[in-house]
């Protein structure tokens, strides 16, 4: 295995394009585990942390551009980003331990394509867009279109995600992410729910995006569930309808982390709790 540390995106793309067996190293918190377990044996790892534009968080067009090599801890140290997109930053704050957060990136979390990735439902709900660089230039792809199944992405040979763009936070909107795990920390999500919603001046929901994690082969955009909120104030009946719709949208399996039935039930519970936080944030109460 070779270790390469390019200093520009073009150089990284060239290395990646030239070697189909090479892997991108961002935070490394997934890749190094798989290397150690012998699950992958790449010919090279390409460390992107020496590429300046990939290691910075920048305000961009009213929103935020987060470099693909930025550790999640740094996102939470950027106060204005936390204010705009608390759903995304709190999801980033749940990825593993303090130590993991010192390395893990949300772009890596996305490209690892685990159905249980914490930051992905939060980014999807925020309407995040991944910027993808490749041999033919760069393109912008909605985050939900990057993973295609467990461990699989839509990235073509030679492509890598260089940044995640979070759009300008809409007025009177709130975002939140919650997950369920058996312990208080250190577990992989059994259910994860990201919600972003916008209120009108009367407090009724005018827009909502809901994404479910760990209850399907990839992140689920729960469109029907979002509709249950539109026009409501997020009162108890509305939240019960939301919970039922989220449980219905989930397509979980039985595995060592929980039964399908449990996951379906808890999807609704967590959706309701997440929505309450997002509503409070939209109203400026939290």
């Amino acid at each position, binding site marked *: 295995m070779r270790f390469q540390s390019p200093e520009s995106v073009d150089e990284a793309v060239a290395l990646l394009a030239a070697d189909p067996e090479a892997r991108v190293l961002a935070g490394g918190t997934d890749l190094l585990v798989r290397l150690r377990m012998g699950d992958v044996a790449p010919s090279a790892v390409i460390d992107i942390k020496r590429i300046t534009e990939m290691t910075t968080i920048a305000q961009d067009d009213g929103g935020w551009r987060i470099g693909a090599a930025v550790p999640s801890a740094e996102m939470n140290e950027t106060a204005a980003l936390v204010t705009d997109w608390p759903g995304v930053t709190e999801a980033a704050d749940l990825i593993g331990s303090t130590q993991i957060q*010192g390395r893990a990136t949300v772009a890596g979390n996305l490209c690892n394509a685990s159905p249980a990735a914490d930051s992905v439902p939060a980014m999807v709900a925020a309407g995040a867009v991944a910027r993808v660089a490749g041999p033919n230039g760069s393109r912008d792809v909605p985050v939900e279109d990057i993973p295609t199944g467990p461990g699989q992405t839509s990235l073509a040979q030679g492509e890598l995600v260089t940044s995640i763009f979070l759009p300008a936070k809409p007025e009177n909107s709130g975002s939140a992410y919650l997950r369920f795990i058996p312990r208080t920390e250190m577990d992989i999500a059994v259910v994860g729910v990201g919600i972003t919603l916008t209120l009108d001046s009367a407090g009724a929901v005018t827009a909502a995006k809901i994404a479910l994690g760990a209850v399907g082969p990839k992140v689920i955009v729960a469109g029907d569930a979002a509709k249950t909120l539109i026009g409501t104030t997020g009162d108890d009946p509305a939240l019960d309808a939301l919970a039922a719709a989220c449980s219905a949208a989930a397509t979980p399996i039985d595995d060592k982390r929980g039964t399908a039935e449990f996951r379906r039930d808890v999807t609704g519970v967590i959706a309701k709790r997440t929505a309450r936080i997002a509503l409070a944030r939209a109203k400026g109460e939290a």
Partner: protein
Amino acid sequence: MSQIHVITTINGDETEFLCEAQETLLDVLRDHLDLTGSKEGCGTGDCGACSVIVDGRLVCACLMLAGEAEGRSVETIEGMADGDDLHPLQQKFLEMAALQCGVCTPGILVATKNLLERNPNPTEEEVRYWLAGNLCRCTGYDKIIRAVMDTAADMRGAA
């Protein structure tokens, strides 16, 4: 197998080493540099026994390739005391019996040092969540948490 040449700073000393591409920082610390204070409890970032500070940020040395250390500054447990003068956390862990077998202790000390540098006045809950990635199987964490809280109070008082 061609080796990578790395120049880095470890506990303030410029350090040069050769390593294989797939070797982790932990492999190099332990097997090449005789810095065995960082422990390998899992190799997968789940136990925190290999916690080190890289450019001011707490990480697991088992989840960082040694090649990534080029030009960085690495702090390990071996650099925590200043000669014979123990860091206040080290001293407090001794006084309050915050260790039993001691194998998780280096990682916990490094992690809490980083915590107190960032947050000199943490709540018990903040200490517990900060340390969630540092497994201890002997103590039930009780005396560890007390020692950290007590040290933080002492250090605030001294500052």
